[in-house]
């Protein structure tokens, strides 16, 4: 071979085993929960907001942005919340209930100054 052409360059392509291995590794990381991230976010929010409100905001974020957080479903967020914040706080309870019913409506209410 004296000149590389498209046929020759195909030798550089990954084999199917490589493709499957790399994608499987990436998807395992995509699907694995990262409670450390949630904990850090919760603590970070609590620095600026009343802890209960921070927790409520996070609940809403998880509800509003499925796929954007390691815990896309509200139930998972709620489990973490119970370990990190006071779930008996009426504001948190109200937020969870409202977010389950209609997350976007809750965000609008917060935008207007809260419940």
């Amino acid at each position, binding site marked *: *071979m*004296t*000149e*590389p*052409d*498209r046929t*020759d*360059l*195909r*030798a*550089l*392509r*990954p*084999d*199917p*085993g*490589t*493709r*499957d*291995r*790399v*994608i*499987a*590794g*990436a*998807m*395992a*990381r*995509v*699907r694995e929960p990262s409670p450390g991230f949630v904990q850090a976010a919760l603590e970070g929010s609590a620095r600026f907001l009343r802890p209960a409100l921070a927790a409520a905001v996070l609940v809403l974020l998880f509800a509003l*942005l*499925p*796929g*954007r957080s390691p815990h*896309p*479903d509200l139930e998972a967020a709620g489990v973490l919340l119970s370990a990190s914040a006071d779930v008996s706080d009426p504001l948190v309870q109200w937020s969870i209930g409202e977010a389950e019913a209609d997350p976007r409506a809750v965000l609008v209410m917060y935008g207007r100054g809260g419940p």
Partner: protein
Amino acid sequence: MDPSDAELVRRARAGDDAAFETLLHRHFDMAFGVALGVAADRDDAEDICQDAFVRAWERLHQCRHPERFRGWLARVVRSVGLNRVESRTRRRQTPLEAHPPLPSDRPRPDEAVRRRELRERLERALGHLPEVQRQAVLLYDLEGWAHAEVAELLGISVLMSRRHVSDGRRALRRRLESDREGKESS
């Protein structure tokens, strides 16, 4: 009919990770080509792809034109690759060895040997090219991208894309010839 990239992006944004996985299978060869263009090393290219795919999932909402997912993913892969090349000391977060190879259609042994030799020669030659030239040749000649697409990804003009492909091919030819002559004389 297979769903379009835009449709799969929409589903993935709604939390459907299987849709995202389909996108990765669809564009893996391209992503690997971009990563190889940055790193000039297959092992590094695999790690770059894995990191880039996770980042793409985390930032999928930033893909403003889902119908142009391929170009967006290429930019993510290149960005991750360039960062990795700059900080090679970073440890692998998830060793690929943790995921055993899956069954695949393997070529016959003699064909596999021929392909491996050719691949090694090409990789040695590619390793001597500047990164932009390497990318331009791989994307244009291997992936069949248009010069306009190559130019957009690399942040250069179409004219420069043509020049990089032309210069890259010439440099590759020289390297492959000297590689062959070196083997024949030894």
